[in-house]
């Protein structure tokens, strides 16, 4: 991180404590806030003045920590309501430029979205993402998601009966709003040209508008018309 900013982290659990330690080592100014007295005393032995005791959903606790000059607020408590509230006031009351919220229950993610709290990070979703990556047959893998910009990069495994297998890239009829950017074959990746012929077992990377994701996966998926 080239730019050093003041970061407030709420919740000194495993995530918050380790984040604080890493960000401090990178030279940032960090204040961690923890509302459990015992936990606070434990972490305070290491982080000393970089941790404060208090309930960060009490606004004066955030103010005491200097939220008005914070460039980033990260809410990683074990309670989704608290994380949502802290990020909401950080963003809307104290005009903190960047917020990051932890989602404990992935089913609550839609609430974070509804309240405009982005980005939100869910460990469950991250692990699911890794499972997708480790087990490509599971389906497509999301490598990058930029929902607000309507862009994503996905990785897809071409099945043996894909209608795209055996086709030249110049003959592909991918949906509008999608672009093939590279092919992974035999453990090497390359950028295809118009004459590249796709093979079953290829993993392809495509950049696309998430709204055409279904069309794209159907296009590269098994050729159902041929089998019927």
């Amino acid at each position, binding site marked *: 991180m080239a730019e050093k900013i003041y970061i407030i982290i709420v919740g000194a659990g495993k995530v918050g404590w380790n984040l604080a330690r890493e960000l401090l080592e990178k030279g940032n100014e960090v204040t961690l806030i923890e509302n459990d007295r015992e936990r606070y005393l434990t972490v305070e032995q290491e982080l000393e003045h970089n941790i404060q005791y208090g309930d960060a959903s*009490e606004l004066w606790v955030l103010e005491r920590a200097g939220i008005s000059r914070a460039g980033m607020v990260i809410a990683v408590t074990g309670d*989704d*309501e608290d994380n*949502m*509230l802290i990020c909401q006031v950080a963003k809307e009351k104290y005009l903190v430029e960047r917020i990051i919220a932890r989602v404990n*229950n992935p089913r609550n993610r839609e609430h974070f979205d*509804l309240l405009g709290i982005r980005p939100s990070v869910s460990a469950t979703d991250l692990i699911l993402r890794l499972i997708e990556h480790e087990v490509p047959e599971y389906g497509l893998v999301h490598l990058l998601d930029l929902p607000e910009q309507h862009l994503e990069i996905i990785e897809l495994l071409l099945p043996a009966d894909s209608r795209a297998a055996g086709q030249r890239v110049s003959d592909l009829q991918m949906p509008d709003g999608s672009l093939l950017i590279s092919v992974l074959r035999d453990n090497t990746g390359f950028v295809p040209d118009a004459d590249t012929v796709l093979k079953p077992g290829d993993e392809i990377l495509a950049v696309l508008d998430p709204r055409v994701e279904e069309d794209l996966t159907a296009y590269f998926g098994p050729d159902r018309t041929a089998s019927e």
Partner: protein
Amino acid sequence: MFVVIVGAGRVGASLARSMLAEGHEVSCLDEDPESHARLEIGLDRSWEDMGGRFTVGTALEIEALTAAGVERADVFVASTDGDNTNIIIAQLAKRRFDVPTVITRVLDPYRAQWYADQGMHTICPTRVAIDMLETEVRAAASRTRGSAGRSGGVDHEDADL
């Protein structure tokens, strides 16, 4: 009128009974099944026999809110024991379910004030208590002013001797 109350503690349960007695349709949602008993305090029939509804579930779960009837609620009251929970579910009721009237109990005066400034209809019992206490103490002060109080006008250091 159809009232959905989330959090059937002392406040929520009392409100639920009053509204039901006044002829409104009332549905309560609480994560604790035991809170059903609180709804029946002072009733000679069961809450359901009186026409009330009760759903067990967590307020942040859309299924639970829907089961409680939030989609056709005229009034939504967030009265759980958690300020943050109340503030978040009130926004769900308003933004996602378009409930016309949403009332939120917030114990912390500072949070209550800021969200009220943002257009949320908040009720802050702590603020009410502070105002009442201030009024009482001021009244006592003005009564004592005439008689100079118990210290009789002597300053404290002398009075301690």
